[in-house]
């Protein structure tokens, strides 16, 4: 159980600045994702926490103690690499016990802990195999076991689900979540995939260009992004420029709509409004509700069918994307009415 804090951490490689300055506060036992596009500095941040890179400025604190100068070996952290980095010349057993062998623990304790951890990751059958004889999911479980057997105070993972196929992803996701909750170990992982971040993490830190853009729970990032970049990265499709005519009304190119007033935004401000595509109700023109708030009429311009869900693009001054369960299918060209609750409209300062 360790609390991790980054204090104005900066990292430069020669003239190149990988991390401008990052403050991050990770609670003990929390599962946090560092999310961002490739090259944003998320892996560098992870490597600095692990001790593989030393910060140029700032400090890395574990439970309030500065560990910036503590060598990797002494930091007692765990890391699961994206391509697992298993030792190809060692069996599963040897890979798993490596961390204890190099610490010179008594043989008896090592074998006890080996049995225990092989049970946890269900690799008993494969203990005599070499990494080349394992599947991707099995290799990842070896990598996790190899790390957990050393009882690290912080567990780090680099793109933990990236190399797995869809079915295995679900399995590994549950496995990692369960394990993390059971052991209560502070876990930080890096990903460029917002779905992966939301699936796994308690909180997500979005990093753009070496700066922390937003840090919060997945639903907060998804529903209340603090910038259009974050909204965009979290997969938002309907972001439109608008002007506040009142604290709770915004003028857009598809009409003036009621919104939820947000602190810090005043009438007259230029803003963006964001309408989550699944938060919009869609009605054929004939079934349009009477007297409901925020009615927008338009025409279906395109339809994309995904099986369980269907997505429409509705032309209404702007192109608005609407997603719904595919219990019915409307046709392209059909006139429709959209309705959106004010509390499902999120406003971003411009």
């Amino acid at each position: 159980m360790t609390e991790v804090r980054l204090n104005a951490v900066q990292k430069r490689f020669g003239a190149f600045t990988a991390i401008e300055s990052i403050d991050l506060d990770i609670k003990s036992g929390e599962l946090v994702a560092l999310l961002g596009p490739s090259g944003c500095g998320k892996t560098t941040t992870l490597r600095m926490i692990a001790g593989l890179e030393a910060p140029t400025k700032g400090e890395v604190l574990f439970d309030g103690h500065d560990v910036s100068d503590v060598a990797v070996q002494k930091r007692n952290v765990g890391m699961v690499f994206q391509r697992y980095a298993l030792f190809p010349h060692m069996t599963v057993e040897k890979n798993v016990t490596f961390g204890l062998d190099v610490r010179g623990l008594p043989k008896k304790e090592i074998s006890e802990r080996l049995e225990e951890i092989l049970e946890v990751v269900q690799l008993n059958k494969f203990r005599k195999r070499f990494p080349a004889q394992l599947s991707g999911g099995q290799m990842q479980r070896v990598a996790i076991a190899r790390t957990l057997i050393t009882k690290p105070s912080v567990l780090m993972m680099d793109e933990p689900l990236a190399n797995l196929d869809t079915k295995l992803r679900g399995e590994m996701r549950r496995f990692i979540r369960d394990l993390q909750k059971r052991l209560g170990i502070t876990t930080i992982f890096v990903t460029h995939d917002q779905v992966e971040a939301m699936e796994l993490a308690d909180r997500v830190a979005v990093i753009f260009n070496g700066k922390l853009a937003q840090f919060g729970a997945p639903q907060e990032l998804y529903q209340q992004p603090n910038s259009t970049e974050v909204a965009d990265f979290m997969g938002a499709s309907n972001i439109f420029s608008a002007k506040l005519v009142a604290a709770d009304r915004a003028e857009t190119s598809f009409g003036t709509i009621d919104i939820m007033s947000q602190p810090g935004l005043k009438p007259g401000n230029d803003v963006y409004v964001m309408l989550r595509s699944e938060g919009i109700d869609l009605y054929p023109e004939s079934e349009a509700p009477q007297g409901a708030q925020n009615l927008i009429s338009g025409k279906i311009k395109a339809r994309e069918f995904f099986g369980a869900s269907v997505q429409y693009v509705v032309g209404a001054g702007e192109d608005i994307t609407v997603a719904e369960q595919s219990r019915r299918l409307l046709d392209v060209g059909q006139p429709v009415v959209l309705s959106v609750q004010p509390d499902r409209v999120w406003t971003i300062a411009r």
Partner: protein
Amino acid sequence: MARSHDSALKERMWLWLQLSPVLLILAVLFGGALVLAVVQSLGFAPWFGVNTFPSFQYFGALWGSVSFWQSLWLTLYYATVSTVIALVMGIALALALVRTFPGKHLYKYVYKLPLMIPYTVGIALAVIMLGNGGMISRLASFFGFISDPSHFPQILKTHAGWGIIAVYVWKQVPFITLAIYAVMLGIGRETEEAAAILGANRWQILSQVTLPQIMPGVVSSTLICFAFNVGAFEAPFILGGGFPDTLPVVAWRYFNDADYTLQLQGMATVVSIALVAGIILFSYLAIYRRFERKIGRN
């Protein structure tokens, strides 16, 4: 039936025909020379008026003399010591090259220089640098480490062979480095980082993680260097300590003797070198094969 038999024969003929170029090369380059050498060493040389084939008298005379075993020892000693020194230096260099350090770009070119310079130039350099009247001895006396250049310790022309070893090492370090560096680039740094995070110190990382993974590079490069060193002639001839010489020099002396029938004795020497080198390299590869099986490569 007859037809299909016929076509099978044709097919086999065609296969041999396609193989013939490579078989020819194998036969002439390797088989021919080897067979000729073995046959001569067993007393077949009618062109010199000698034909006692098959007789082991030349091997008997050779292996029966003490000087042969001294020569064999010297040959193996120079070859092994220089290969081991070059390997240690090569590994250290390759480890440095996969890390970043100032001036690395330039250094990556400089270290390969000896690869392009012939052995004979290396030998000449050794004479100029390491001899008793050489640069280093003069510098040593200039700076007052020794009172006169002639007091410099004898490096060349001794049976300790430090001159020979220096030339081999100088020429072969870049070669070994190149081979191991390529393997290291292939395996990447991640396993080393993983080991460090798991708590391994530098020595544990090197011995338990890095070395086992670079073994293919280590084995192939040392194999080539060792085989070359066993058969090399110029360096021990020029820089060696005189009688007893290394086996290639002994063979050369037989070939160059006014009594040309001694060429058969020379052939027996050459075949002996091939036998010894063959046994050593074969055992080396067999041991490596066992190691590979132990680490799960089949």
